[in-house]
């Protein structure tokens, strides 16, 4: 054990030294005129453009959402692809042969959610909470334009509502509601919605993800509102994918890929 410790200490000291050496040139913490926050001579400041002009371009008050889903929407699409790839990779790594094709055996009778009463307190509480959580999740997704929120956050909360069924009664109960085949399809549908919006813009003679040209299809009174509505559309797509894959990650990790017993 001596060798990894020495090597670790040397690596940490050298790396920390290099990083701290560069810190002395940085602007101070909280400086509103630092190059990141204001313009550098010779170029126009990107973040000041976002703050001053993005409401005019997109009519979305939450500046973070407007940058995330419109100006840098291409990055957000690939972020969704990253989550999808992680879900696929986890099944590819853990999925045991024959795990999905054999029928699931009902072990001791129906789980709590479907009638078994041996876990009353936890079961009842969670059962009452699930619809509340889901409504809140839908609120977070839809209200991402006006308050902190959006597709990722709402999708994770929606996935949590399925996970809480799995935690309080049985993984089978949750899988009966969102089975393996279905959650992968939901994830694909989510990304197809996102990319579909983009390709629709390409069909209408503009660049990928240029939502302004969708105005005649969405029947809005200006390209800015078309952008606002398309942002909601792609956030819904993101929420589908995130929900499906977060639940998939839980289901595969907790049952070691067999999707049989679970925690």
């Amino acid at each position, binding site marked *: 054990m001596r060798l990894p410790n020495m090597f670790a200490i040397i690596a940490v000291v050298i790396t920390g030294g290099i990083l701290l050496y560069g810190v002395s040139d*940085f602007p101070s913490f909280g400086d509103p005129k630092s190059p990141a*926050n204001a313009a550098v001579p*010779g*170029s126009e400041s990107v973040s000041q453009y976002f703050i001053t002009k993005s409401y005019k371009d997109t009519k979305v008050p939450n500046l973070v959402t407007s940058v995330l889903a419109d100006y840098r929407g*291409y990055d957000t699409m*690939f972020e969704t692809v990253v989550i999808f790839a992680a879900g696929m990779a986890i099944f590819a790594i853990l999925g045991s042969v024959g795990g999905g094709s054999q029928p699931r055996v009902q072990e001791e009778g129906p789980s709590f959610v479907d009638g078994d009463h041996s876990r009353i307190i936890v079961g009842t509480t969670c059962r009452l909470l699930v619809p509340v959580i889901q409504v809140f999740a839908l609120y977070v997704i839809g209200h991402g334009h006006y308050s902190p929120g959006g597709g990722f956050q709402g999708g994770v909360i929606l996935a949590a509502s399925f996970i809480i069924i799995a935690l309080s009664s049985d993984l089978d109960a949750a899988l009966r509601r969102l089975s393996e085949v279905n959650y992968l399809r939901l994830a694909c549908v989510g990304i197809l919605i996102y990319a579909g919006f983009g390709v629709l813009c390409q069909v209408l003679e503009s660049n*990928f993800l240029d939502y302004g040209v969708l105005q005649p299809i969405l029947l809005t009174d200006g390209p800015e509102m078309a952008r606002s509505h398309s942002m909601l559309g792609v956030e819904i797509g993101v929420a589908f994918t995130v929900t499906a894959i977060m639940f998939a990650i839980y289901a595969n990790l907790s049952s070691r890929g067999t999707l049989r017993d679970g925690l």
Partner: protein
Amino acid sequence: MTDQIPAILVLAPLFGAMIIGLAGQKDHRACFPVALVSLLVTLFASIGAIFTVIESGPIDYFMGGWEKPLGIGIHLRIDSLNVILLVAIAIVAVLVAIFSIRRIGDKNAEKTPHFYSLYLLLCVGLFGITIAGDAFNLFVLVEVSSLTSYGLIAMGSSRRGTLAAFNYVLMGTVGASFYLLGVGYLYLMTGSLNMQEIHSIFVANPDIASSKAVAISFILILIGIWIKMAFFPLYGWLPNAYSYCPSSSACILAPLMTKISVYVMIRVMISVFGLGWVFASPGYSNLVVWLAVIAILAGSMLALAQREIKKMLCYLIVAEVGYMVGGAWLADEQLWGLTGSLYHILADAAMTLCLFLAAGIFAKRFNAIEIDDLEGLFKKAPWTAAGFVVGALAMIGVPPTCGFFSKFYLIRGGIEANHWEYVIALLISSLVNAVLFFRIFEIAFFGVKPPEGHGHHEEEEAELKEEHHPEIPNWTGTSSLLVASAFVILLGIFNGKVVELIRVALEDLTVVAQRF
């Protein structure tokens, strides 16, 4: 239509992956045709891109239509530097897809849609990295390709493979995080994420360009990319990861992942920081060339010591990365080192593809994992042997294969830059490769066992051949291999045209990138 090419390159495999996810779960036979069609679409798009770039210069594409001011939207750029690389990625992807028909099939039939989906998403990531013009977008795409490669490598059923995959995940994440940190330092000092914009800010503000933070950001980005390309001394993850994973994964990852990282390093050096800034103090470029020399020698010596075929090929990849990094940092006046390095990216992709396809065919059809298992195989599989021989000759550097021409340009750059240690290391490495491969040829052609065991030996081999996948047609693997070896030779014969395209790109970019 041609102005939408950058988006088509990235979208076609993405839609293919989604369709496989939707439809392929129930019917596994739909996976391969969908994958092949989407990859052929990208192949045609990339060939179209070459013609467009030659005729009318670089293609600039702004996602979401946000063109001005530069930097609010995400910028994709195809110029003569990366257009040939796009074609190379597309060709390699198509060939390995053909090779992998039903190789996943026997034990892991459940995972076929997942394999093809991850494969297509890997291609999306690689294309996206090549055409990215925005530093943060590059990070996201590097993560897409990394995650899919973690999945592809860990999919196998070997014991040592899982530990190797875990180490690969840790090292890959550390590398990508260093890159992200470097981009963060750059953003803090310049306020922009667009590569062209950062460069023009450096040109307009020399005080920012010479600050410590910018130098540290370059070092951080470089370390991150070096981890990803397995440059000495950060190469520990590569041999284990690529040798113990399924053959199809190794065949797509080994030719492409490290080479695209070399391309990213060259792109960052030229388009973001500018060669004048990078080569300003010769001490640092000498240091990097020495590191490259050690990489070449270490890779070649370690390859000599290996008994398994794939591990040997992995150490040869480490040496090849050393060639490319050394060539890029030679800093000779006429930039022949950089030209050689870029040409070697293409050449090495083709050679490595050949060798890994051949190794994959040997492993699957004849269960030949170690070099000694190759006895007498060349007579049984003449076409596979021909492909392997072509790849080996390219590695050694025999004309008219591409390996000879890439060494020629690299040596020329080394001589002009007075880096004799680099030239000597290249020659030693060629010699070591020659020893390595001729030893394999000897075992494979003539065998080691005495002649009277020959008949018995043939019966055993025939039995082995029967057990392993009698239903997979042999032509899938061998035809990919033969096309790959044809490319190795063609790339060598037409090296003049390819190098001319690279020189045009370098002149455009280094004229625009002022030496300040």
